[in-house]
């Protein structure tokens, strides 16, 4: 039976090989690259130096970019939870044909390229776009406001791109909620608000927490939407890495930027999981 004992390893070998060659090894190469140095005259020099990390962690220019990126991710996560959680609950309470129709409408855009969805926001939010026409037409604004190349514009567009993940995550955890529990709460004299706060919200919590993590990590590393709506004026980390690699040709510095991004995100995810597990232990049992 020795042959059968080795079978699972043989079956897993192709996938393992692909991941090792095209993900793990390249990641190690980037880590090594981040310690090399670069000058315009000499190009990349394979010496070991912390100069790139000193620059990324010490320079105000990069502080602004990292700060903006994580602020954007936090804002997007907050807004996505604020509108995604009630929507998931509304979808949850819908009757069968409507529920799948609207889930389809909310999840369907995930099949369309992020570039297309962001283009829609560029058209809507432009100086002569629909949003401005509507707001000035209604007398809310006197003059057209600038939404393109602003944090507001980036937040709105990214919320649109990522809120389906929040709705899906919360809806999935609400599905396990027995409607009889809600009915029992109401029949025992609890108000609708109490039922929401004491029965529905705790049940939705795992979904909200998981959805927030997905939205936050995707927003913090988003490239296309911030690049199109924010442009070079409001650079995020992914855009900064892109510029170092493809415009300045300073690959070692670009490598250091993504290594710092990766470490920051892993730290946040691990820390978040720690806190969540401690505070909401009873939710996950």
């Amino acid at each position, binding site marked *: 039976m020795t042959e059968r004992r080795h*079978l*699972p*390893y043989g*079956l*897993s070998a*192709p*996938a*393992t090989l*692909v*991941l090792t060659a*095209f*993900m793990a090894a*390249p*990641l190690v190469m*980037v880590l090594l690259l981040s310690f090399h140095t670069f000058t315009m005259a000499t190009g990349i020099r394979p010496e070991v130096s912390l100069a790139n990390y000193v620059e990324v962690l010490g320079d105000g220019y990069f502080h602004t970019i990292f700060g903006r990126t994580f602020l954007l991710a936090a804002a997007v996560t907050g807004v996505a939870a604020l*509108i995604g959680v009630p*929507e998931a609950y*509304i979808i949850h309470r819908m009757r069968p044909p409507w529920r799948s129709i609207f*889930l*389809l*409408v*909310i999840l*369907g855009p995930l*099949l*369309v*390229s*992020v*570039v*297309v969805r962001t*283009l*829609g*926001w560029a*058209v*809507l939010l*432009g100086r002569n776009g629909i949003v401005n026409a509507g707001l000035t037409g209604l007398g809310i604004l006197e003059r057209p406001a600038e939404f393109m190349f602003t944090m507001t514009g980036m937040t709105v567009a*990214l919320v*649109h*791109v990522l*809120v389906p993940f929040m709705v*899906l995550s919360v809806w999935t955890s609400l599905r396990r909620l027995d*409607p009889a529990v*809600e009915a029992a709460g*109401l029949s025992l004299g609890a108000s609708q608000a109490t039922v929401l706060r004491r029965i529905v919200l705790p049940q939705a919590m795992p979904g909200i927490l998981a959805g927030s993590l*997905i939205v936050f*990590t*995707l927003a913090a*590393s*988003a*490239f*296309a*939407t911030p*690049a*199109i709506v924010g*442009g070079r004026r409001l650079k995020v980390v992914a855009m900064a*890495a*892109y510029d170092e690699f*493809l415009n300045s040709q300073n690959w070692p510095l*670009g490598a250091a930027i993504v290594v710092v*991004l*990766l470490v920051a995100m892993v730290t946040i995810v691990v820390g978040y999981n720690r806190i969540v597990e401690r505070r909401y232990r009873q939710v996950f049992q």
Partner: protein
Amino acid sequence: MTRRNGPLALVFHAAFIAFILAPLVVVCLVAFTPEAYLSIPTTRWSLRWFKAIWGSDFIPAFWISVYVAAAAASLALLVSVPAAIATARFQFPGREALVAYFLSPLMVPHVVLGVALLRFMAEVGLTANAFGLIMGHVVIIMPFTLRLALAALAGMDRHVEWAAGSLGASDLTVFRRVTLPIILPGLAGGWLLAFIQSFDELTMTVFVASPGTTTLPVRMFQYITDNIDPMVAAISAALIGLAILLMAVMERVYGLERLLAGKGGD
């Protein structure tokens, strides 16, 4: 019986759906403008921007995307199915670690994978080569094909496999004649989702795209960062139409919610 949504909830719901659909609808409307600038057609509609797509360099980019996505989805499925069988049907030391490794591409942002792939391709001399790009896409979509292959394997009745085995069929015969035909519909769904995922991928691809491997999303991104005109809106409208068509097919065959539950983002 759940209680019905109140009027306030329905107003919120309508606003939410409008928010979701607004950018997509606007793009589709602008695509039909007869003007040379971005505007919503009111009296006259025109197909001039759809005609303008033919002969533009978006058409070759579209085909590059199709080839890359088809190759990447097929390769990803080819390596995921044996891996799924190993992890679903066998107990062996290191099994959990292996599953975690297979799903690990989900944890790495695409921008990091793009940088890594660019460095890798430069080091081994693969630049301007579609092979490197395709393998990069395989890495990104493999967690999804693996999950769907695992779901297909978990959903099937194992008694038929045991029956075939007890009747003297070899492992290979059992797989080829029993397991594979049963899980094939699930695998086809996984292939389709992987294809879409690869077709839409921008963030990693933009780092390694060379003139010969500029996919449609990359070409559109480059174009949009320069200027936005009704022609990109027309291309976007065509892509939205394509997505609606695919959704209708996938909803009929698999139920879309189940498939989308595992899809990635930006």
